[in-house]
């Protein structure tokens, strides 16, 4: 079941790739240069999604806090399941009038018949009394009249808005895990990013859906490229000091900066190995920016590249940990490359343009990156997000004519990509946007003033 789902996901990505290639071939044959060089087919929706009805939970306490907390819970659960990318959500206006709070109150026929026509139903009871939230959540299979219950969960937490949201995230992740082929959901994951105000840039964090944005570092300088460790314990980033940019490390367990050795030259764009033991980054300690790999405390440093020109933005293959994708300007404009982690088997993947900011998909199959295929003074076109299949070098374009896009980062389930987008191309307008890995379902997570998102590993 796990494998079948994973494969159909890759089909989801690959099928439009083939179609787009055909489209490009036809376009270049007809040499209709003025035609729009992209178009959207609905074939990426070929896999039919599970139709799920998400009922508003039944209030089971008369505590005045119940209503606002239940509102937070209901909307968070609905959004989590809508955002998951594997469901066809029944519009709230098509739901039956009554909210069942327990299995005994559920009338399956009402929910499985048109117009609701649900295949799955998420429902339950929500109450807040004595300063605690109590939630009973159920998932029912509408087609299985005899044994409809798929999932039953109970939660009890201190009553506050944040906990109402977190309980909804946890219940949503349970549902997504059951119905999404055993791939854990992402509703409980975090996104780390850079927020700028005045001349300074600090590291910030938020929930995957843009909620509870909060500041992490207070360094009063320019900090860039936050990368969260696989165990969520540390953030590696790069920060401007008197001697230029250095790799810095912030501990989320200690809530303070921890030591990482400084070196000569510009040191930037750290990347964690999937086991959390190694850190790859770009350093110009030798005079030319090259990719180095150190252990996570900065010790036993070794150099992976040696070629004149900028080498930056490394990222490990999260599946194997044995390959690195990165950006190199060794032949002029920056291009996307991969190599083995020992520096051998260097392969160039892009054939031109200006390619930057690569992120490797959790299953190891795909690279997401920012690419301006027609880069040059006065050239038309813009910088968009692309996904390339590593094995075949076939690519698809995910964003179209929404302004400048950069810094894609995969979600841990491989179904989403978060990136930085500036609709008018100006740095000050940059905001963080998330979308499904086929380019649909785009939504803004922050206001302008945020850049360089990095999705947590779990």
């Amino acid at each position, binding site marked *: 079941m796990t494998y079948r789902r994973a494969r159909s996901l890759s089909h989801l990505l690959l099928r439009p790739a083939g179609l787009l290639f055909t489209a490009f071939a036809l376009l270049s044959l007809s040499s209709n240069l003025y035609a729009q060089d992209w178009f959207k087919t609905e074939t990426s929706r070929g896999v039919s999604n599970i139709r799920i009805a998400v009922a508003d939970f039944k209030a089971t306490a008369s505590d005045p806090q119940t209503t606002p907390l239940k509102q937070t819970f209901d909307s968070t659960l609905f959004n989590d399941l809508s955002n998951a990318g594997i469901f066809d959500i029944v519009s709230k206006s098509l739901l039956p009038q009554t909210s069942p709070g327990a299995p005994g109150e559920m009338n399956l026929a009402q929910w499985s018949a048109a117009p609701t026509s649900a295949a799955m139903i998420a429902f339950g009871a929500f109450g807040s009394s004595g300063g605690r939230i109590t939630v009973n959540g159920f998932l029912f299979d509408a087609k299985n009249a005899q044994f409809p219950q798929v999932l039953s969960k109970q939660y009890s937490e201190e009553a506050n808005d944040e906990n109402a949201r977190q309980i909804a995230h946890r219940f949503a992740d349970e549902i997504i895990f059951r119905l999404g082929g055993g791939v854990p959901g992402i509703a409980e994951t975090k996104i780390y990013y850079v927020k700028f105000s005045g001349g300074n840039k600090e590291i910030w964090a938020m929930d995957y859906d843009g909620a509870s944005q909060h500041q992490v570092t207070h360094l009063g300088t320019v900090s860039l490229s936050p990368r969260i460790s696989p165990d969520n314990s540390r953030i590696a980033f790069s920060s*401007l000091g008197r001697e230029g940019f250095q790799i810095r490390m912030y501990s989320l367990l200690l809530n303070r900066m921890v030591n990482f050795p400084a070196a000569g030259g510009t040191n930037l764009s750290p990347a964690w190995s999937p086991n959390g033991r190694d850190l790859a980054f770009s350093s110009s300690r030798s005079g030319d*920016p090259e990719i180095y790999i150190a252990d996570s405390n900065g010790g036993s440093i070794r150099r992976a590249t040696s070629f004149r020109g900028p080498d930056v933005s490394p990222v490990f293959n999260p599946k194997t940990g044995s390959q690195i994708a990165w950006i190199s300007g060794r032949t002029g404009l920056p291009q996307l490359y991969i190599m083995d982690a020992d520096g051998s088997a260097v392969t160039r993947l892009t054939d031109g343009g200006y390619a930057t900011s690569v992120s490797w998909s959790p299953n190891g199959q795909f690279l997401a990156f920012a690419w301006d295929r027609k880069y040059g003074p006065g050239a038309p076109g813009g910088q968009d997000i692309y996904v390339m299949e590593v094995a075949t070098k076939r690519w698809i374009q995910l964003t179209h004519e929404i302004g400048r896009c950069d810094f894609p980062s995969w979600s841990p389930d491989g179904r989403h990509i978060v990136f930085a987008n500036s609709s008018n191309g100006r740095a000050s307008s940059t905001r963080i946007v998330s979308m499904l890995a086929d380019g649909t379902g785009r939504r803004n997570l922050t206001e302008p003033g945020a850049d*360089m998102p990095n999705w947590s590993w779990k």
Partner: protein
Amino acid sequence: MNVSPERYRKALVIVAAVVALSAVTGCHKKEQPVNPASLGPMPSTATAPTANLTADPVSIDVGQSVVLNWRTQNASSVTIDGIGEVPANGTQTVSPSSSTNFHLTAKGDGGSTEANVRVTVRVPQAPTAPSDNGDMGSEAAFHQNVQDVFFDYDSYDLRPDAKTSSQTAANYLNAHPAIKIVIGGYCDDRGSAEYNLALGENRANSAKTALVNSGVAASRVRVISYGKEKQFCSEENENCWQQNRRAQFSLDR
């Protein structure tokens, strides 16, 4: 022209009154520094404005232009003498014909703040050979001889004009062995932030290599890349992009 003495006297009185009034109010627009004590207690919400004014480059030849760059905070009205009322933050290109002090006044609820920058305009004259070996030389002499190097887009190779100017710079530095310098590497705001930091490093290093090859000890030269994190101007045109694609020299104190 038959004016009665009485009327004449009346007119005289009026003229005298006007003169006296203007003497009190002042025709001259010279700004008096505000004595904070005379302002009384400040409202707790108003913070004093801050102002920062920079010119780039700070010294030019006659006919060249200078980019003024100013940043203010908490100011409701910002003026620059000779330019007039300006936005709170901005840049402007000016071409003064002689050395000029640009004076910015930022007024806000919390008082007023001033910022100054001097732009030196060089009148062409025969260059004088540097003779003072021991000291660091003057800031102006440094910037006159050690000039910023500009690059083509996405390139860190020195252009022919940059090679000439870095030879001049090396001569000056060799004549002033006490000087240590920092070279800042900068990029325009197109392209990606991480890649631009590496590119800026390569640009600053190109400039450093040229100096070292001309006999300047490498230990006297420090290199910092700022990528596109510190822009000199923010317009979306080639003129501004070129301004930002540079290796900038400054004294390392």
